């Protein structure tokens, strides 16, 4: 009995210490006011004045502020749009690759899998910097295109949304490939043959059998890309331009440039609330898939 309790308690303690307590602190800061002090917000909890006076100082002013300045909701919307489009692009790139991997001869599959995972062995930042080198006006891509004669003057890609999309698709496509690959690899080849036998063309069999049976993988992959992309900061700030509006960048600026911790915390809390919706949907999908497999 005691053993079981300890086993169950460990993950809950982990969650409490590393998620709920920090979240409570962030939430408390979001309800505070900015102050020129150290730390830069007010009120601080004081034993002398007691909990009642402390709580009385807290308010939702910062959350109201988020709705008043259109920068914030524009940034949220823009983040959502960028996350949607890049998830879709990642799916377009990832699905054929996962399909190809699942169809490759069995002895090749571990190697192909290795190649997909291999980029993770280098630092994420270095890889994003490398893309700056590729996409800049004097970069490798423009040099190559001019050399082939396709263009006369360099294309401006770096510091635009296009560069952000390229960066996100490149960074996150392993998260798309792996769940789809595992769904496709388990797909029984005789189902495709059965579909063809019953009168489907190759394309129909793909559409009517392969796609529905890899749906769980597609959904999992999309969430795994969508959720981190929504709050992405590094890629838009390194590859994006001044017009690339993403909530991660806004958050960073509030925190480090304006030193307005309470507003930054409010932005973070709202972002988390936004993310709860896809996370719950994702978990429901996982649960359904597990039930179907039993």
């Amino acid at each position: 009995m005691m053993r079981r309790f300890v086993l169950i308690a460990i993950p809950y303690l982990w969650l409490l210490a590393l998620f709920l307590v920090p979240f409570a602190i962030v939430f408390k800061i979001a309800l505070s006011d900015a102050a020129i002090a150290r730390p830069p917000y007010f009120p601080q909890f004081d034993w002398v004045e007691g909990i009642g006076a402390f709580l009385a100082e807290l308010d939702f002013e910062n959350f109201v502020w988020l709705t008043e300045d259109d920068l914030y909701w524009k940034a949220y919307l823009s983040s959502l749009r960028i996350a949607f489009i890049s998830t879709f692009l990642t799916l377009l790139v990832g699905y054929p690759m996962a399909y190809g991997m699942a169809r490759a001869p069995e002895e090749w599959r571990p190697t192909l899998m290795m190649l997909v995972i291999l980029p993770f062995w280098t630092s994420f930042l270095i890889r994003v910097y490398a893309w700056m080198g590729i996409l800049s006006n004097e970069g490798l891509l423009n040099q190559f295109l001019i050399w082939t004669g396709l263009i006369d003057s360099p294309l401006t890609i770096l510091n635009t949304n296009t560069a952000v999309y390229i960066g996100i698709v490149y960074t996150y496509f392993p998260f798309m490939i792996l769940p789809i690959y595992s769904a496709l690899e388990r797909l029984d080849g005789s189902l495709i043959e059965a579909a063809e036998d019953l009168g489907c063309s190759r394309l129909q069999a793909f559409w009517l059998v392969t796609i529905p049976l890899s749906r769980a993988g597609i959904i999992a992959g999309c969430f795994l890309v969508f959720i981190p992309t929504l709050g992405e900061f590094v890629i838009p700030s390194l590859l994006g331009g001044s017009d690339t509006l993403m909530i991660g960048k806004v958050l960073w600026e509030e925190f480090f440039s304006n030193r307005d911790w309470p507003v930054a915390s409010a932005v973070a809390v709202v972002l988390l609330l936004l993310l709860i919706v896809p996370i719950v949907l994702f978990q429901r999908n996982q649960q359904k898939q597990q039930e179907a497999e039993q």
Partner: protein
Amino acid sequence: MTIPVFEPWNDPEAKPLIQFQNVTKRFGEFTAIDDLTLGIYEREFFALLGPSGCGKTTMMRMLAGFETPTDGKIYLSGQDIAPVPPNKRLVNMMFQSYALFPHLSIWDNIAFGLKRENKPKHDIEERVQEMLRLTRLEKFARRKPHQISGGQRQRVALARSLAKAPKLLLLDEPLGALDKKLRQDTQFELMDIQEKTGTTFVIVTHDQEEAMTVASRVAVMDNGKLVQVATPDRIYENPNSVYVADFIGDVNIIEGTAKPTGPDQYDITWKEGAEPLNVKSQNSFSDGQTCHLAIRPEKVTISADKPADADNAVQGRVLDIAYLGNISTYHVELPTGAVIKAQTANTRRIARRAFTWEDPVWLSWTATAGVLLAE
């Protein structure tokens, strides 16, 4: 009233529905089908029987269109089917794994092929209903494949492959996943459905009992070649080789040398010291030729005393008894060390069994009981 005998293979006028003509299939170095010629007739229930790797599944996959012959031609109703892709063939297949679509209900699984033909909705509904009735699945139409039992899944697979009313239905080890009792029931169900629909069935199996039960003709295959193609009773009673005799049912193989003693009469000298065996055979043998006498255990009689007028009688002692309930197989060791199996029906209760271990017994059989084979 006389029932017309169904044996189109004996009718020189009959045109086979399927014609394999010198078909060879190679996978790299490996020859799966070796120069094979065969005709299968309309309304036949044809069984391809053989050990795994003998090429029977390859033959079926060539009929379905998933493989193309390396050499030779396959005709369906007189038409070369090599250029016809699987989705355009009037052939349907019931897969060994059933290959039911897990994301579709039973109803949608059965309707899957019909929907591809762009038939009116009403016709599809009617046909699916008919198939559900035929396979007694009406109650399960809305369920998903993982919500029904193995036997029901097997019937869904059958209903789905029959729904398009194919000219030819291919069954790949259709009953392999069922337990023995269910398998036997399903065999009769299959025969019933085949008769009702009048479809030509080709079944692949490694289970000789199954092939014998359901098929009008059986083809025994080995290493990509047909060893014998005949009705089940001919395969059993008149195997053309030791391979077939051994593959189908239980058999005693006695190796010896033949010595003609009269028309169709031979003396077979076997294991030194034993008397020559007296055998009648349609197959002719020259003096001194090596031959094999294949004799089924149920055609060997076991008795305590020497039978008076048997063509062949040998003495031995009971080495082992395999009690199968309805029958018992006695393994009798002869003084030369050879072991011969004899089978008798257990007409008495086991407590009153006539023979037990180590008992001296006589085995006897008639001159026509066995088949004399060259190899």
